[in-house]
């Protein structure tokens, strides 16, 4: 019995993927679990495994093609079976698609998904549903209080970014806007780029030739994505120093209770802290949906950058706000291991909503990361260091750590991002909160 292989959905936000390479050629024997193709999404390159055993009977897509999720890409048939074109056609139409280059069966898919959406909404709280999806008259969604303050202070609401549900402008947005008006000009002093130390040139007598090295697929993907992010996402950066004395002590206490294999890292604490802070600031756990919409993710899935050979991958702790730190630690460790060994699974790298890059283990004092698109922000975490601090007028040794948030200015603004960093301080500096 011939079976269809379709473009897999490799994350909740994946809409389409590129068929990079066929691993199984037509006529190859396929075992269940064999890798049959490589797919690239906007996040990473992943392998498609076959759920069937048999023979790769026919490729329905070509390498390099972009295909929406669920589009049939191949037919796997039983040994010796020769399905006719008609049979394949009927298989495909039964699957709700069209053979070949049916590049965008969107027109057919959309209404179905719309229907589903409305079903889901019917179950949701009616209050939410009743709220019209269009902005109210005047074009700006805002609370009555915001409107009153705006009118008192002569603020044009269309200049203000709303942080409430569906971008509703609320009191704190107006206040943030007023603050930013007051401190205009201050932003310029930011962006002080650290000067890199130039290596001292010296001659060994033999100067090697230039090398042109082929970029791995991973490298290519990183290259494309980082360029896209840095060019198209207007980044802004906020750095804050956190007191980490309590956190370090707690980690020590906790690890004293845990077996070696289960010990938690500082980064595991940070993941949990970030995830909880994001619950309070859903606008940073978001992406640009289109020109006029921001999608705020329901899940808080924290991507953790892991250095692998020839690049880096982001492994994802799904629903990190819900998980105990110990579980977070175990998951990150296992996923990072798989990533380094090239055995990463689809679910390991899919669906992050916010990322963390930690270079603390390299002793980095401070750095800024490029946003992992299409997310709204990334946190660059530096080393925990003992350093001289002044406390109560006395010079003391204090444990400190710097972190820099890179955020997409289309989605959020300085004040909100700064508040997030402040809330994060609550969790990092009083880590007991992580357990409540």
């Amino acid at each position, binding site marked *: 019995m011939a079976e269809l292989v379709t473009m897999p959905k490799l994350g909740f936000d994946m809409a389409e993927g590129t068929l990079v390479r066929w691993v199984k050629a037509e006529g190859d024997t396929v075992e269940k679990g064999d890798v049959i193709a490589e797919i690239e999404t906007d996040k990473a390159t992943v392998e498609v495994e076959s759920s069937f055993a048999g023979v790769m009977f026919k490729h329905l897509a070509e390498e390099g093609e972009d295909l929406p999720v669920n589009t049939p890409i191949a037919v796997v048939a039983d040994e010796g079976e020769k399905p006719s074109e008609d049979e394949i056609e009927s298989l495909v139409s039964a699957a709700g698609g069209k053979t070949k280059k049916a590049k965008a069966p969107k027109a057919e898919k959309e209404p179905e998904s719309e229907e589903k959406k409305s079903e889901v909404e019917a179950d949701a709280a009616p209050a939410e549903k009743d709220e019209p999806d269009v902005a109210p008259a005047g074009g700006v969604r805002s*609370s009555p*209080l915001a409107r009153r303050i705006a009118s008192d202070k002569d603020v044009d609401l269309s200049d203000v970014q709303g*942080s*409430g549900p569906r971008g*509703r402008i609320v009191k704190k947005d107006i206040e943030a806007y007023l603050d930013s008006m007051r401190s205009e000009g201050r932003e310029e002093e930011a962006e002080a780029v650290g000067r890199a130390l130039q290596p001292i040139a010296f001659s060994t007598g033999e100067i090697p030739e230039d090398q042109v090295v082929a970029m791995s697929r991973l490298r290519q993907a990183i290259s494309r994505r980082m360029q896209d992010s840095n060019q198209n996402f207007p980044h802004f950066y906020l750095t804050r120093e956190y007191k980490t004395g309590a956190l370090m002590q707690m980690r020590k206490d906790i690890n004293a209770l845990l077996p070696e294999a289960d010990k938690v890292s500082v980064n595991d604490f940070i993941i949990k802290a970030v995830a909880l802070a994001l*619950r309070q600031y*859903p606008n940073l756990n978001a992406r640009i949906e289109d020109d006029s919409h921001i999608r705020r993710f329901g899940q808080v899935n924290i991507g953790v950058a892991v250095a692998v050979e020839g690049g880096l991958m982001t492994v994802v702790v799904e629903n990190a706000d819900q998980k105990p730190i110990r579980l977070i630690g175990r998951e990150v460790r296992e996923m990072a291991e798989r990533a380094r060994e090239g055995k990463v699974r689809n679910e390991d790298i899919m669906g992050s909503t916010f990322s963390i890059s930690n270079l603390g283990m390299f002793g980095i004092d401070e750095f800024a990361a490029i946003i992992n698109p299409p997310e709204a922000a990334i946190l660059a975490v530096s080393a925990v260091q003992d350093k001289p601090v002044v406390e109560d007028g006395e010079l003391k040794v204090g444990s400190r750590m710097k972190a820099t948030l890179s955020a997409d200015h289309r989605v959020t603004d300085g004040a909100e991002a700064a508040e997030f960093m402040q*809330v994060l301080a609550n969790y990092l500096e009083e880590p007991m*909160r992580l357990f409540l």
Partner: protein
Amino acid sequence: MARMTMREAISRALWEEMERDESVFIMGEEVGVWGGTYAVTKGFYDHFGPDRVKDTPIAETAIVGGAIGAALTGLRPVAELMTINFAFVAMDHIVNEAAKLHYMFAGQFKLPLVIRATSGGGRQLGATHSQTPDAIFAHFPGLKVVSPGTPADAKGLLKSAIRSDDPVLFIENATLYQVKGEVPEDKDYLEPLGKSKVQREGDDVTIVAYSKMVQAALQAADMLAEDGIEAEVVDLRSLRPLDMDPVIASFKRTNRAVVAEEGWRSFGVGSEVSARIYELAFDYVDAPVKRVAQAEVPLPYNADLEQLALPQVEDIYLAAKEVVYG
């Protein structure tokens, strides 16, 4: 001050008022020999005797109707309906008589009457015995509807209700009887009817509640505090007359509110309170008011299902987080 349960506080209020005023007496099902189905009137029968602690037939119409008649003669009956679910049997007397006689006869009739009833679910008593229909009774002008959320208020409010010349429906949440608190021992300790009270102060969000939900709101406020959100808990205490002043004062500071009630949301206390917030403080609204209430089902018997339907501390916590856009 003495630390005691709400049951003791209510019992104490009744006892003190009966000692103070000969015209106060109790009538209801099992209030006497049995000592009250919730043991609130335990020991009363022996001390005050059968004339002042009157066991009635299981006949709510006779209980409320009889109490109304006795009140008209100048007595201060405290009629006990075992649960508010049985008030429906006496609905005519509560609604058409108690709430109306003073007005309809232009002040000639006075009804210094208290009707006590337990309300609320959570004890696996099934759909007919687990309702929180408090809002229904608050619908009628002429009746006062009081429902305390703390032992101290239970004592002070019940004493005021007994001394009031108006008919008062005094609703006790049966799952609160064990809740302990500091209660003034003063025999003239009175809390005013028709006055809301701030039970906890905070600047970030206003949680409006009454009865059992006051306790839930205070717990939710503690959880919110851990997240850096300071909730103000306003206890309505009386549903009629409804005192919105502390609610509005609080809302004008916080701009955000959650209204919690154990009963159903449709046409409920939350509906009323949020409507009034919009009427009285529209220009201070920074987020839609959220209502926390019971799922709209007749309460099931199964304990898990029942708890699933009843509003929980977490619901208030999450609703508060939502209105502060946290």
